[in-house]
Each structure stands twice: as C-alpha cells, then as structure tokens.
C-alpha cells in the first residue's frame, strides 16, 4: 500500500491544469509585488514578513497548496455524496453573515476570522452551488426538458445570488448568472439565453439611443416582421404569431420607456447608474436619481457626482503600456498608485502597464488555455456529475475573467469582482483553488461513474 500510494495519488491528475494554476498564482504574486514595490522601503526579507500584501498573498498561496494537496488526496466519492450537505452549509454560512458579519467597504458580507483575516462566504458558496447543481442535474431520472427541473436548477443557482444582493454585494451575485452557461450545456432551451442577451442589448440600446428614436426603431422592426410573415398571419390565419409579435413589441417598448429609467433612477444608487452609463461612454445625471435626491434632502447638500476616476486611471495605466510595456517595476502609474484598488480588482492594470500588449496577450492566453482545458476535461468525463461540475468551474472562471478584464479596459461597468488566482485576497484564492482541485480530483477518477 505504502509503495503504491504515491503512484495512485498522482495517477490521472491533469498536470497541465495544475501547472497553469501555479503559473497564474505566481503571476498574481508578481503583480501584487509590482503594485506595492517601493524602492525606499524594499528589502528582500519583506517577502516573508507578512506585513506587505505580496507576502500575505504568498502565505495564502501556501495555505491553498496545502488544501489543494488534501483535496487531491481525498476520495472522489466524497463530493457527490456530500454535495447537498455542503450546499446547505454554504447557505447557512452566508446567512450567518447577517448575524456575525463585518462591514468592509460598504458591503456586509464578511466573517471576521481574527488576526486581521476575514472570510467572504459568498465566495466559498460558489463551490457548494457548483457541487449542488452538478448533483441535481446528474440525477438518474433527470429530465432537463421539464420546466420544473429548470426552475429548480435555476433556484439552486440563484439562491446564493439573492442573499448576496441583500448583503450589498451585487457584483458577486452576478457571478451566479454564469451557472446558466452550465445549464445551457445540459439542455436549457437556448431561447432563454437569447431572451437574456436580448434584454441586455435592449438595456444598452436604451442608454445609447434617444428614447423616441428607439421606440420608432422597435416599431419598424415589429412592422417588418409582420410584413415578412404576412402570408403566415393573414392568409393562413395564424393570429397567434401576430399576437406574439405585438406583445414582444409592447414589452420591449415598455422596458425601454419605463422599466429601464425606473431601474436606473429608483432602484440603483447613483454611483451604480453612473458606472453602467460610463461603461457605454455616457454620462448619468444624478439629479434624476431617487436615492441621491433622498440623501440631498437628508443632508441638505447636493450629492457629489461620482466620476469614472477608477476606469479612467485604469485605462491610462493599461493604455500607456504600449506594445511591449514599460518594463518590470517601471510602471509610473502603478508606482504612483494612480489606480485605486490596484492590488485587488484592478490588478490587471499593473500587468498591462509593465508588460504592454504582449504581456496582456500572453496572460489572457494562459487563462484561455486553462478554460479550454477545463472544457476539454469536462467533455471526457464519464459521469454527468463531473462534467457538470467542470462546466461550472469553467463558467465561473470565465465570468470572473471577462467581467474583471472588461471592467479594467472600460468595456463593462465597474463591478468589484476579483481576477481569479491573481487578485490579492485569501477568500478568492481559496475558492478558486478548491474549485480547481476538486475538478482535478474528480478528473483523476474520470473512469468512475459518480452520482
């Protein structure tokens, strides 16, 4: 046993994934080091003193490696067996925040662990949700074409998101939308995603195009559809098509004229609306915002207009990198600390500035390689549980990467979600480590059928 043990442990482990994982973690530490480096105070020992963020990140990486090893040593059957339990535990942990939570940067979503470390359960809950969804969708008698199973799966994915919203962590809540990619792979009708994307497109169009012009455009499109389908409708008397077109038109115009302004002016805070507007290159007028008007009345002074300083500085830092970048530790914007939150959400900027387009390209290529590898792993699984879980991991990673990078390059509103394995932060790194290593563990047993 003792002789064959090491062999059986490493057997089936997908080393490419592990290597990519390690490369990303090291890149992250390097980036955090670039952000914090100060030639005046730097000494080689500051890597291990635990006072700087990069030394803390090294510590987190060490802890994560230990946990990762434990996961690889564990039994694959554990995960499907305990998936539901872990999910319940995760939800309880998230709910417990309301009782023992701590307020950090305006979001009450942290559990203090002592020693200056805090845990964000919403991060960890991604794992339990992924497991629970995999467990549910891989049930033997699962028929995912049924509406009931679709609703149940959706509920499993969106329950933590709802709790997150209550904790003022809208960004983390959005991540749970990535589970719809998994559900799509498992047979969720494509029309739902199409409707979702159409809604998004309509919202963006509302922000960009003058409202009457947009209403006319929508009407013209509806008119064209009716004209094209005139044979079906008027000759073959398929009135239901006509009714459907009219009702879709009605809903669209309703969204565009009433729902979107309502959401932006009455539901969102002024700064949220501003961020979304600035992502499409527009300016939001806060005097329309109900929340800012309320604060104005309460405090008696005009709310200061939140500006897009973060994104502007982030774009300057990345843009000034040029083709080859300014070189390691030579980024003026990074050293000048012009980009706020640069070691966490805006970590990509330090890389973009120091290593330019070439560096950014290679960096994104590593992520892309990891994503494709995970999809490849997913497709080679014998058991549905492993496959669904693998897709969950890929989707979560994908969502994080895309939203984070797009946010720093000004393609997406500023949402505080970290860059996986690279951004500073223990909770985030731990979450992704566990996600990936459970996948590696499950993949090592890909010949086994797990339920």
């Amino acid at each position, binding site marked *: 046993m003792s002789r064959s043990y090491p062999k059986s442990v490493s057997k089936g482990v997908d080393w490419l994934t592990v290597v990519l994982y390690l490369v990303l973690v090291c890149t992250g530490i390097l980036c955090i080091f670039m952000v914090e480096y*100060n*030639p*005046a105070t730097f000494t080689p020992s500051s890597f291990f003193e635990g006072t700087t963020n990069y030394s803390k990140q090294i510590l987190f990486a060490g802890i994560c490696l230990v946990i990762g090893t434990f996961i690889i040593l564990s039994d694959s059957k554990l995960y499907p067996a305990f998936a539901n339990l872990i999910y319940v535990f995760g939800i309880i942990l998230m709910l417990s925040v309301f009782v023992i939570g701590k307020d950090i940067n305006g979001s009450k979503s942290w559990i203090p662990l002592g020693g200056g470390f805090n845990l964000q359960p919403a991060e960890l809950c991604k794992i339990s949700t992924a497991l629970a969804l995999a467990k549910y969708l891989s049930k033997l008698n699962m028929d*995912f074409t049924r509406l009931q199973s679709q609703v149940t799966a959706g509920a499993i994915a969106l329950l933590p998101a709802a709790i997150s919203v209550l904790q003022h962590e809208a960004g983390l809540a959005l991540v749970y939308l990535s589970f719809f*990619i998994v559900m*799509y*792979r*498992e*047979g969720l009708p494509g029309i739902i995603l199409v409707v979702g994307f159409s809604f998004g497109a309509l919202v963006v169009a509302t922000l960009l195009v003058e409202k009457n012009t947009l209403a006319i455009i929508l009407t013209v499109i509806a008119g064209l559809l009716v004209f094209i389908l005139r044979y079906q409708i008027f000759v073959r008397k398929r009135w239901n098509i006509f009714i459907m077109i009219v009702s879709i038109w009605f809903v669209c115009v309703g969204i565009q004229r009433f729902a979107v302004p309502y959401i932006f002016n009455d539901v969102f805070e002024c700064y949220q609306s501003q961020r979304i507007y600035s992502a499409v290159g527009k300016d939001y007028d806060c005097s329309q915002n109900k929340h800012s008007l309320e604060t104005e009345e309460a405090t008696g002074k005009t709310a200061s207009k939140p500006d897009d300083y973060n994104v502007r*500085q982030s*774009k*300057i*830092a*990345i*843009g*000034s*990198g*040029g*083709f080859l970048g300014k070189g390691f530790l030579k980024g*003026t*914007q990074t*050293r*000048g*600390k*012009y980009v706020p939150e640069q070691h966490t959400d805006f970590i990509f900027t330090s890389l*973009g500035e120091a290593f*330019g*387009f070439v560096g*950014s*390209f290679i960096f*994104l290529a590593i992520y*892309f390689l990891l*994503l*494709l590898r995970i*999809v490849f792993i*997913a*497709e080679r699984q014998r058991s*549905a549980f492993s*496959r669904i879980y693998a*897709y969950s991991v890929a989707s979560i990673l*994908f969502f994080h990467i*895309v939203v984070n*990078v*797009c946010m720093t*390059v*000004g*393609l997406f509103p500023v949402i505080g979600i970290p860059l996986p394995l690279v951004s500073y932060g223990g909770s985030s790194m731990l979450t992704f480590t566990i996600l990936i290593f459970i996948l590696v563990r499950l993949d090592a047993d890909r010949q086994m059928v797990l339920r």
Partner: protein
Amino acid sequence: MPVYNQSRSRIIQIFFILVFLMMLLQLLNLQIFSSEYKLQAENNAIYRKVVYPDRGIIYDRNGKAVLENTIMYDLMVTPSEAKGLDTNALCSIVGIDTAEFHKRMVTAIIKNSRYKPSIFEPLISDEVFARLNENMYKFPGFNIVERPVRAYPFHSAANVLGYLGEVDSNFLKRHAGEGYDQGDYAGMTGLERSYEKVLMGQRGVKRYIRDNKNRIQGSYENGTYDTSAIAGRNLYTSMDIDLQMLAEKLLQNKIGSVVAINPKTGGILAMATSPSYDPTMLTGSQRRKNFGKLILDTARPLLNRAIKGQYPPGSTYKPLSALIALDEGIITPAYGYPCAGAYYSCGRPVKCTEHWQGHSKDLRTAIAYSCNSYFSNVFRMIVDNPKYHNPRLGYLEWKHYMNAFGYGIDLNIDIPSEDDGNIPDTSGYNKDFGGPRWNSCNIVTLGIGQDRMLATPLQIANAMCIIANKGYYYTPHFVDSIENETIADTQFIGKYRFKHVPLEHISDTSFNTVQMGMHDVAVFGTAKAVKIDGVNICAKTGTAQNPHGKDHSLFVAFAPMENPKIAICVVVENAGFGATWAAPIASLVMEKYLKDTLTTQSQANVERISGADLIPPAIKHWYFKQDSIKLVKQSQKINPDAAPVFQNNLETTKPVQFDPEAEPNRKDNGDTTQIKTKPDAIQQDNKKKIQPKH
C-alpha cells in the same frame, strides 16, 4: 448524458473565443492605437521640477562683488507628517502664537495639499535657524530648506542694482516660452531687470515620479532626461563702490542725486540718489512689509532721481549756450555784455548775482561769474540769429544743438525707466502764445537754464563729458563686460562701446575757451571754494528756481582739465546756491576718485556735509505725522508684486500723470504728458538661448 447537447460544447467554446477576442481588440485599441493614454500617464506621474541656478554676480570696477548670492533658509512643513510635534516649542522659536500656527497649517493645506511641503516661515533669521536646527527632532513634518537669496555686501546702490520680484501673469504672458513659471522671481528694476537674461542663467529640469497624492517617489528613468542648471553669468561694471558709498553718505538727509561718469568710456562711476534704502530690505522675510513702507514714503526712496529726477539745469546750462553761440559764429570769445546787475531788454528784468562792471567783459569771465544778463543776451542772439530770419527756426536750431548735447532725449543707459527731461518744442510755445507769435524775449529764461528746460542729473553729467572730451561721448552705462560674452550680449552692450560725435564741428578753440571759463569758476568764480591739490578742475554752479520752495543746488564739474578722468553732476533739492552744498559734495567725490584718499580736512568736510539735514520741512512734517502703526497697517495691504514699480517695458506711449516730485518745474495744470517709454533692455536677445531644455 443527453448526447444531443454535445454540440453545445462547441457553441460554448466559440462563445469563449469571441469574448476573449473582444477583450484583445480593446487591448489593441488602448495599448497600440491610442496615443492619448501615454500622454495622460506622463502628465499624471512625471513631475518636472525646475532647478534654479545661482543668479550672476555684479562686480564693481575693482572686482568687488556689489551684488552676490547668499543662502537663506525657509522652514517648510508637510502637514500630513506633522503629527505629535511640540507646537509650543516651535511657536516660541518662530515667535508666533498657537492660533497663528493653526492658521498657517490650514493655509498650507489649502495651498499645497497636506501631502506636499509648503513654506511655513520663509527666510528665517540666523538665530531662529540655529535654534530650530538644534530642535528639529521635536518637529516631525518640518524641515529647513535652503534658498539662494540676493545679498548686498555694501548695502548700497539700491536703485542702480534693483530688486527681484515675483513675476505676475502679465510678465508670464510677455515672456512666454522663456522658462518662467508662476512663483518665479525676476529682476524688476535696475541692472537686475536690464540684464535679467544674463543674470538668470539657464534653469535645469529634473524629472521625478510622483504618486497620486503628488508625493515624489524617486527620479524618473534615473535622471536620463534631466538637464542641469547653469549659473547666471557675472557682470563687470564701471561702478566704484567706494565712490558710490561716499556719494550716498554725502547725500544723507538730503534729497538729490550724484552722477559721476568716466568721460573717456562713458562708464558710470557712481550714481547716488537720496533718499534711498538699504537693498537688503527687499530680500529677506520682511520684504513685503518693507516694500509697503518704501512705496508709501512721501520722499520716494524707490525713485532713482539720477535718471528720473527732472530738474531745471539753471546756470549749469551756460557752458552749452556758450558753445552753441561760438559754433554758430554769433559771438567770439571776446564778446562782452555790459551787465549792471540785471538784464532789462525784455521788460521784466532777469536778475544777476554780480553787479560790478566787468564781470561779463568776455565769455570766459561771464562763465566764471555766471552772468545771467550775458547768457540771456546770448540765448536771444542764438534764437534771433539773422541767418534763419525767424526766431522759430533759430530756436529749432538751438534745440537741435541741445539734443546733440543729450538734453531732452533718452540716453539709453543700461538701467530701465530713464526719463528724457524736456527741451520744449516750438509747438508748445505756439500753443501758449496763440500761434507762432512769440519771440526770443518771451522765452529768455531758457538762456539761464530755466523756463521749461528740464534735464536729469545723468544728462547734465553726460553734457559735462562732452565738454571734457571736446565733442564726443560714450553712452553712459554701468556694465563694461559680461562673463562669457555671447554675440547677443555684444549686440546689446555694443552701443555702449560706440563713440558718439554729434558735436565734432565745434572747434577745439571753442571748447578750450569754455573749459578755461569753467576752470576760472573753480579758481576765482562762483565755486572758488572747490579745490583739490594739484588738480585743475573745470566746474559750473547752478541755482535753479523751482515751484517747490528754496532753489535747487546744482553743481557740475570735470577734472583734471588736461586729461579728464571724471565728470560729475550733483543736485541737492531745495538747498540754495549751487556753491553751498552741491559744490563741496562734488569736490569730495572727485577728490576721492582722483586721489584715492581724502585729506583730513576733507574727511571732516564729509562728516559735516553728511550730518547736514536739508530735507524740506513739508516732508519732515509728513514723517512726523505718520503714525508708525498706521504705516505698518497700510503697508501690509500692499502687495509688493502688484504694486507699481518704476519701470517701462514696451515701446509705447502712455499718458502719465503730472508728477510734481519728479518734474519740479512744471505747474500742475491737470493734463497728462505723453511719455515715450523704451523697451526692456535685453529684449532683442535670442530668446531660445536661455530657455531650459525640455
């Protein structure tokens, strides 16, 4: 496993690829196709610090530095770091109370943010510096920073050297692209202004990386793009600082001016004006306060009377009149006029100080005794010269001569804002007399240097140079040479090396006659008290009537007669006869210059004269009335940089209000004069030369 969903794996992968491509496209756009971000990043993070070079030093003719640099110290504070300091100790050392301390901290934060150092106390005194230095450890966030400041080792020649002032927005507009910034200092008056480009040197630029709170993080690219500061170049002047100090001492408690010129070169040996001020008053921490005090002083210590005081030359004009008449062939040296104490030919008699017969028997004695009748008559003869058939034309010919002598025109000395005095044009008289109906009798007092004739002490001294040199002069100037002279410099000071010969047609005999007459002045004439052992002095006294009370005392001279080394003009306002005060002052200055030392008797004279108080009672009364507290209060309200300075910068004519102090002989008729101003001295300099490299 729903097999039909297998294709969806492909769709998901294509979706991933598309989204990643979109991100790459945006990166391409940001990093390669937009150049604006590079520029913005530089604006953000690179801090250009201008390094100020030492200004050039000004030397006198003996190589003594009369204007140099010294280090003073500013107490700086960085508010964000000033925590846990001993406020009381600091306040007691600097000499302020805690309320003032907090006020200054707030001002510093407002002006410069709490992360950047601001000046807490500028130009601290040596004593404060010493005490602070011992206790700096008690004051975190505070530090002492060196600042080069102008120093005047002799505390003298304030109005010649000029002072530095903070540049204003107009200055920056005029000198755009020459490397000036808000808060810089530049020469505002005197040599500091004329030779600003030479003295300022070349500013260096250091580039630093700064952070989002404007704190310096280190040098940019290890200083590859930095340029170093090049010190300003020195000026070597013709000024003799000992002579200058003597002249200033002699003018103590008087209002007036002394100008001494080396006739051979045009180099000004001394240019004193009184009252003046100690130039160090306008350098240190008290600059603001002192400036207010000086500008409010009714005796106007900031006015350089040597170039801006316009006086009727009185009898000092007579030698010029003699030369004109001789050159025009109107009189011969033997010409005499029977004067019996006054000139009666023009109705109201022009009185003469001498009554005895024969004091105007010929030109030489007429000069020696300064006969008013004689020169009234000579002037009339010049104007009524039959050659020109018309007194207007005769007058214009006379005016032409006067301008050739440098009266009524700018001499273009190398310190700014020189006045050109007044030799009136015929148009002025035409206006007053209702058309060209006036004759020589109407303006007869011009013949004794009165009427509307005005000249600055510099002009009068320069005319003496012409007589001493028998016809030529060099434009009076201070700077003889510039260290490492460039072509542009040579162009500028070249005009001071050019020999002007406007009166070469006057014969040497004429000059000799006039010089002999002036020699007689100092031997037996109006200034017989003026004696220097072994030196033949040519001199002329002047007693100018003016509307301000007692006559101005004037004296001109040059010596030695055979080989003139010094020409001098002394004006003492409201001091009576020329021989009483102006003559001994001139005598002492000449003696000092020619003999290098003063005899014991002369030294006693120096003490006697410098002790004499000739300030007009009206001004004394003003001083008496000035409650000192009130003065301080008023002076605090004056911004030294916005206050008017006596400077003219653009070649324009601008209306100037009548100034009774500067133009004592004019009646205030409420109208304004057109004063032609001259451009800034080294304006034509190659502008690129002194720009810092970027």
